[in-house]
């Protein structure tokens, strides 16, 4: 370790007696660059090499546009469903005591742990016209499997833990005194929830929505089994990438991937702004 007096002014890092900075940062950066940054910039480079006209022709293709619409649309609906039910699940897990609560709590993480392909074939079997749930819905005229609704079902499954696990810790931190204060001031339970508790939870709910949405847009494994994969109807963008790859149409695959990444980042940016706004507003 060098112990020459540290120079004042701008410096890359603050001095510390803890050793190993150069080694660990160097290794981390090298690994990050090799595994993540070089491959990803390869994608950017390839799509830039396409040129604007070619790029636009691929993206504006009706099949591409439909696939993007389906991916983003179903992911949005699924994330919205998860916001409603995920928040209720989180509330029940945090506030109520009942036998089996621990198991229910642990189960919420199942979509993190269960391989997506397994989830895909299981959901398809359940919602197929002769499946356990599918045959209940059949008489009502609701078809889930092999329709966009099936995609939503798969994405609800995938996205649930994102909402619950983001909202849950914030709910746990709610200061009971705030609720009691509101009650002592005459607020009804409904008013307390909507005016006092919900604003505090809003940033977490928005974050959970964003995470579930982002995951849903890119999801592949659980969707392709249940979706039916009809072009223009139930074909998601990640699947279209795979199809183009199988056709050795690298250009199209690259362009769709690039536009998906760009759209995802824009959406995340918007959500980030919304979050900042609500955090400023509600602390």
């Amino acid at each position: 370790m060098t112990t020459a007096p540290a120079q004042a002014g701008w410096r890359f890092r603050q001095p510390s007696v803890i050793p190993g900075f150069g080694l660990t940062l160097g290794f981390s950066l090298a690994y990050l660059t090799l595994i993540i940054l070089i491959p990803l910039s390869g994608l950017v480079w390839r799509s830039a090499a396409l040129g604007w006209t070619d790029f636009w022709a691929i993206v504006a293709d009706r099949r591409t546009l439909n696939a993007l619409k389906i991916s983003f649309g179903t992911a949005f609906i699924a994330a919205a469903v998860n916001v409603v039910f995920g928040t209720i699940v989180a509330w029940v897990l945090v506030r109520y005591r009942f036998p089996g609560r621990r198991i229910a709590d642990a189960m919420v993480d199942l979509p993190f742990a269960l391989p997506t392909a397994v989830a895909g074939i299981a959901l398809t079997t359940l919602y197929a016209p002769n499946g356990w749930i599918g045959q209940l819905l059949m008489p009502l005229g609701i078809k889930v499997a092999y329709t966009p609704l099936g995609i939503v079902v798969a994405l609800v499954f995938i996205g649930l833990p994102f909402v619950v696990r983001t909202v849950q810790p914030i709910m746990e931190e709610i200061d009971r005194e705030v609720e009691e204060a509101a009650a002592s001031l005459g607020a009804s339970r409904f008013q307390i929830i909507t005016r006092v508790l919900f604003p505090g939870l809003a940033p977490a709910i928005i974050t959970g929505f964003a995470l579930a949405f982002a995951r849903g847009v890119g999801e592949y494994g659980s969707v392709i089994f249940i979706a039916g994969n009809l072009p223009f109807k139930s074909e998601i963008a990640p699947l279209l990438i795979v199809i183009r790859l199988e056709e050795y149409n690298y250009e199209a695959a690259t362009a769709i991937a690039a536009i998906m990444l760009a759209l995802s980042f824009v959406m995340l940016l918007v959500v980030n702004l919304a979050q900042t706004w609500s955090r400023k507003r509600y602390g």
Partner: protein
Amino acid sequence: MADPEIKSYEPLHESLSAAVTESRPVRWVAMGTAFVFLAVFLLLPLIVVFHEALAKGVGSYAEALASPDTRSAIRLTLLVAAISVPLNVIFGISAAWAIAKFEFKGKAFLTTLIDLPFSVSPVISGLVYVLLFGAQGLLGEWLKAHGIVILFAVPGIVLATVFVTFPFVARELIPLMQEQGNGDEEAALSLGANGWQTFRYVTLPNVKWGLLYGVLLCNARAMGEFGAVSVVSGHIRGLTNTMPLHVEILYNEYNAVGAFAVASLLAGLALVTLVLKTLLEMRYGAEIAATRGH
């Protein structure tokens, strides 16, 4: 290690005054909604996997698992996890040490970069390697000339798996090590320990449960990854088929029992992961920090 502060835990319902909980009917409706939702979306899919796997009896279940293609898929999945998990553990520890123990410019940016793979579609994670190593890829010609095979072979599968499981260990360790601060390390150094000894005897024991937690999640994803691996594997039976890919092939061949038999193994892995994860959280909650969820 008994922590006296935790013993004074008071069950929540006792402290619930009437003023701060919902009326009984509302509670029942909320709980009913939550239960039905969880049952339909989580429990039923899990049950159906085992139900379908055993639909034609234990005999055909065992037969499906014993087939050579299935066995080679299991071997490949174990091999891929055995390579990619340790790689990401080394990276995770190294990145967490640099980020949690030091203050430097660009730290926040680096932390964001580490999370990047979580916001990329698995299919794109596979695609980037195809663009790099494929026949039309940037390095394709060169690799071909030198006889190096990456794509549609084990190295490609490992790379794609490393990509998607990249953040798990690091993001678990970073907040944990940040929260623990540098006090213990400074104490060890002041007692004469060198850097390696400080890490080995002080830091590592402090984060071991968090590390195990990260490894658990990393492993579950590594063994279960489908999209990214599907793109780079080439689906060569008995050679580049991992378990999730094998599930797909069997399912598309209308071999439901076979598909669900392999799926049941993966579901079993998921259940074991969940149980271990819950046990870790119960037993060492404070030592793995409140960093659940992704």
